[in-house]
């Protein structure tokens, strides 16, 4: 076993266990904190894949922004269902069975796939260059249109969520 595999296994164990804790813990704020740990583990996985840009963006966007937003929202809605009451609905056992079946199916289909054992060489400096991605994102025959569309999607999300979340003044008075 090489050092890299060891690091992968540790990171994967952290990801899986903290993801599990985050979907099962009672208090929502704990769930959010476990979620953060899972995200950091995923960032380590990205670093092992040598996609540094995405490893850093994972921390920046998920941990630095989305997780903080989730924590803010948890604080805003905490009066309901925080420590008391059941956190899960009745179908828990049934769901467990279904999810296990799905997982078994995924593993089975992976086993029958020919390229499953593929290995890879370290990336060359050219492939590591983030600028290549930038060029592809702005080239007219590349991904320029999807890139602009994402910005419109975010604009729509911003306007929509401010409209929904913002307390109207006249209601308060």
């Amino acid at each position: 076993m090489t050092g890299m595999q060891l690091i992968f296994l540790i990171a994967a164990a952290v990801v899986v266990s903290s993801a599990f804790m985050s979907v099962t813990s009672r208090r929502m704020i704990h769930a959010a904190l476990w979620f953060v740990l899972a995200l950091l583990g995923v960032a380590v996985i990205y670093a092992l894949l040598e996609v540094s840009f995405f490893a850093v963006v994972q921390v920046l966007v998920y941990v630095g922004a989305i997780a903080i937003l989730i924590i803010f929202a948890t604080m805003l809605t905490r009066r309901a269902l925080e420590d008391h009451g059941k956190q899960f609905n009745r179908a828990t056992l049934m769901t467990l069975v279904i999810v296990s079946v799905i997982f078994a199916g995924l593993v089975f289909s992976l086993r029958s796939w020919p390229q499953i054992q593929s290995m890879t060489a370290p990336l060359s400096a050219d492939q590591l260059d983030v600028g290549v991605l930038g060029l592809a994102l702005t080239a007219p025959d590349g991904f320029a249109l999807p890139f602009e569309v994402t910005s419109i999607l975010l604009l729509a999300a911003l306007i929509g969520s401010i409209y929904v979340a913002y307390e109207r003044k006249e209601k308060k008075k």
Partner: protein
Amino acid sequence: MIPLYWYLLLAALLFCIGLFGVITRKNAVGILISIELMLNAANINLLAFWRYLYSETGDLRGQVFVIIIFVVAAAEAAVGLAMIISAYRQKQTVVANEIDSMKG
């Protein structure tokens, strides 16, 4: 080196945990967290496939897809949480089953 299927197994496991959370969680914020976990699983898959099968060909579709998923995840978190907050303000609950009518 790490074989490809390790990444795929991890992603599958993460996806199933997320799915479990989405179905069983009562708290709407919890459901959102679970969805984000599933999106992360998809991202691991996309990047692993790009790295192992497409990195030599100069095909960047895998990476661009991940970028778009980041954007979608951000938009989803923003709008989803805003709706949860709004629903909480109207009905004082974050239990997904109880927010079943959209009428204010």
